[in-house]
């Protein structure tokens, strides 16, 4: 039996709707709608996501328009762009990558500072 290939949406493929499930997918085409995938999603150079994105990990070489929530990591590569807020454990933006929005990572501060930070915030 052949090994099951990973997901791939070629440059001409356009999906309008909700994409969900457990899989790794590379997107060189376009998804408009909603993306909720347990796995790695790679948006290639020609790839476009116009959707709120919930994934394990996201690698962006193309364009993502929408808020991103990743349980693990988000990486914006050179030439990649995210228009939206990003919440993830780890976020990286390579030189040449773009992000227009807020980044929200858990930041572990030293106890002394955290206490002061927390009281200031409240």
């Amino acid at each position, binding site marked *: 039996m052949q090994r099951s*290939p990973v997901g791939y949406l070629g440059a001409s*493929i*356009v999906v309008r709707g909700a*994409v969900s499930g457990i*899989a790794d*997918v590379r997107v060189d085409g376009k998804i408009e*709608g909603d993306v909720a995938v347990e796995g790695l999603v790679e948006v290639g150079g020609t790839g476009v996501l116009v959707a709120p994105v919930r994934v394990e990990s996201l690698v962006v070489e193309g364009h993502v328009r929408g808020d991103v929530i990743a349980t693990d990591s988000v990486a914006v590569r050179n030439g990649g762009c995210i228009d939206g807020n990003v919440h993830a454990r780890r976020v990286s933006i390579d030189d040449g990558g773009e992000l227009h929005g807020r980044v929200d990572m858990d930041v572990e501060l030293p106890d002394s500072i955290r206490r002061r930070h927390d009281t200031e915030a409240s």
Partner: protein
Amino acid sequence: MKRVSVIPAGLRIAGDVEGSEDLLVLGAVEGGVRIAGSLVVEESGVVHGDVEARSLVVRGVLVGDGDASEWIRVDAQARMVGDVRAPRVSIVEGARFRGRVIMTSTESPSVARVPRSVPPPTTSSRSTPPSSSDAEAMLRAALHEEPSLAPIEPSASAASVTATATSPGTARAPHGAHAARRPPPPLVPAVRRQKVRRRDA
């Protein structure tokens, strides 16, 4: 070589899919699929919606109409409910199919047949599969019927046909199994009409 588009097992799309290349469906699509290339719904694939492609191979589940400009093959493992419409349609022994078969006219000169870029669905070409990705190999296997295809189990399928065709009260002798099977497809309409005309004259 161009990478083949794949909706993998485990992935579900609720919505429409469009494109101008080949597509392999191993996951689930609830919505329409319109592809200018070949569309293969693999054994693990489930499509609930109408599909359009240049050529279509159903090896999994398709609930919806299939429309192809070249050919359609409903493979042995397929379960399909819906109409199929193409110049050439084949339903492989073992397939479960419910729907209309519409073989679009190829006699009319106004309908120019698209030159075939792939061999007909029933001929088995023995070309060796290219040593590229798994998806590419799967697509090739589906489109060309490489020998890697799972063998059909005629005994099992024949038994199931008999079971559905015979009512429980009228148990038939083993040789009756053939008679209980579906009759051959109807005659070509043109031939029928000629016969009728002759009788009238």
